[in-house]
């Protein structure tokens, strides 16, 4: 058993879990200019929705997809009914709204699904050995799925007209409007995508751990660390930052007691921001 390879796979698993929700936070910040604290709770919601779909004997991967789409729609509904009316009011109102939504969603999940620790109905699998790496089929599938979604997201931002509209709005909202982009469409699309990404991330986290109403809440801080480190507004940045932070926190076990694991992540965050105040990937102007 080679410890190094085990740590490497662990880091990959953590990074895969963090990347998509962190990208969601990052995207919302890039386009709508506020940190959305409700994203971790959309993870919880997505994870539980997938559980309910699994109960209808839908396979987990399909349930995850549907649940993420549903989460996206719910996020969109929240945005259109609450957040839409405070768009013009600056950063603070949507931040406060997102905090309220966070509490509401967390307790809503408790109300519907209860406080018990739950689990997806998938067989716990023994791992297989792949080029010296010990990994279970579920973990491999999860890492693969996240990579595919990441690539699709990247391509969509780069080569579709919606992606261009998003980038334009994020760089210069006024100019984007002048060129005929309808900002509400961009906002709605981004919120839907963020809900979707959070939903997938939630299912990924729940397959690796278990379902509790605190599921998303517990990764709030690492997610924001990843989003900030990656450079707010960048999907690639979020992926790189997730990988970097996951590596640092896993390999820190070689050197430091675990008490400092989280602190170390912040040390890295501070150091990177000292050198690159905009985060790993610079976006915007």
């Amino acid at each position, binding site marked *: *058993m080679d*410890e190094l390879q*085990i*740590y490497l*796979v*662990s880091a990959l*698993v*953590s990074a895969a*879990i*963090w990347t998509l929700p962190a990208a969601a936070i990052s995207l919302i910040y890039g386009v709508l200019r506020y940190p959305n604290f409700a994203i971790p709770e959309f993870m919880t919601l997505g994870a539980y929705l997938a559980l309910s779909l699994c109960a209808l004997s839908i396979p987990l991967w399909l349930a995850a997809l549907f649940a993420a789409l549903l989460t996206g729609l719910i996020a969109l509904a929240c945005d259109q009914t609450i957040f839409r009316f405070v768009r013009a009011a600056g950063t603070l109102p949507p931040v406060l709204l997102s905090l309220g939504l966070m509490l509401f969603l*967390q*307790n809503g999940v*408790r*109300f*519907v699904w*209860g*406080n*018990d*620790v*739950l*689990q997806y109905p998938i*067989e*716990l*699998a*023994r*791992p297989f050995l792949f080029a010296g790496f*010990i990994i*279970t089929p*579920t*973990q491999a599938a999860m890492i693969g799925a996240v990579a595919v979604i990441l690539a699709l997201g990247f391509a969509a931002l780069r080569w579709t007209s919606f992606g261009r509209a998003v980038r334009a709005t994020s760089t210069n909202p006024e100019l984007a409007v002048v060129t005929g982009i309808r900002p509400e469409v961009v906002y709605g699309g981004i919120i839907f995508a963020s809900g979707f990404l959070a939903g997938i991330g939630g299912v990924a*986290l729940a397959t*690796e*751990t*278990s379902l*509790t*109403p*605190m599921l998303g809440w*517990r*990764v709030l801080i*690492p997610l924001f660390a990843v989003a900030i480190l990656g450079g707010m507004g960048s999907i690639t940045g979020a992926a790189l930052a997730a990988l970097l932070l996951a590596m640092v926190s*896993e390999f820190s*076990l070689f050197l430091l*007691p*675990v*008490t400092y*694991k*989280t602190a170390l992540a912040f040390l890295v965050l501070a150091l990177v921001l000292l050198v690159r105040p905009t985060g790993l990937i610079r976006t915007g102007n």
Partner: protein
Amino acid sequence: MKNVISNRFFLAGSISRRSLLVVGAGAVVATTLPSLSTAWAQDGDIKVGALMPLSGAGGSFGQEMLTSAKVALEEINAAGGPLGRKIALVVENDETSPEAAVRGARKLVDVDKISAIVGTWASSVTLAVAPIVQEKKLVQLSTSGASRITEVQKKGHLFRTEPDDLLFGKAYAEYASSQGWKKAAVLGLNVPFTQMTVEAFRQRFVERGGKVMSFTAYNEDQTTFRSEVTRAFADQPDFIHISGYEPDITAILKAAYQLGLSGQFIVPGFAVSPGLIKNAGPAAEGLLLVEEGVAEGSPAYDRLTKSLGGDRYYSFGAQAYDQLVLLALAIEAAKSTDGTALNEAIKKVSGPDGTKVSSFAEGIKALRNDEQVNYEGASGSIDFDANGNIAKANFRVSQVKNGKIQPIGAVKDVAF
């Protein structure tokens, strides 16, 4: 241990739908029951407060404790009661919450004028209620495990029938060395409670010739436990002790299984629910759990299980039963309901010196013959030390086999 369960419950700052219902129902019970039971009380009755978690995280245990205490109450009053007076139980729901417990205790002390409180279960509750009891120089009997309580007990008037958490740590060590295991690895949740029990475990295990190969701490918010598990398995230990709670222990068992590792895990019994066994599935197979014991086969425990139906393992129920019997015997021995006198008398009737008795009826007979008695209860032999902790604790060891928890052994007479 339980203190942290309840702490977690409140830190979470939220209540599930189910527990909301229970709290609601509990509130109704709490408002009706005391008035009812006070109505039963007649002049000359000795009033005892039953401050129990009838709802909240400890809800199911509180119900068990209350029914068990009522079994003891019936036996005591049927035998004529201490000093020829009947005991009346005044029930308050502590909701597994220190705030509610303090309100309940205030009412018991100021309005009902009780002589003693039995039943505080969560450690946070015991710690919150103790100052009220100590200020009025009454007596409190508790089923909490947290080691911090020992400090408070040094002021007297507080006794615990639950083994201290440190004894739990030592019980893991004694069981392991009784199996001939020499090499241990420990995985511990990064909170003060585990550091104390793990230290107690290490100390006893080393005394018995064992060696702790590694101690790996973890945080509960980790997304994966692969690295920690790998580290624990690295030295090929004979067994791995996990000191934590249900969610993280589930995740660790799964991580080991998914890494293709197999090993012998020993965990606290309170962390293992049917949910854990279902969630961890094949990864929980063979898991060993150590929980507070009862005196199985003792006359007191037999009587209790008979009255309660015998479908479960009544560890906290047995303690609640014993608390009331001890208190009644102490009142008879002290010839008084005064808290200061009871504080001494409870220690005396608990043993270890004196004629062994296993019920209130036997005890009162011996006491009236001017003998000193040693109560051997349903939960164990219960001999209190100078601090009011049980000096020698018994534990039950069970194993998960084919998805079911089966008792496989015991660790007896674990001392500090």
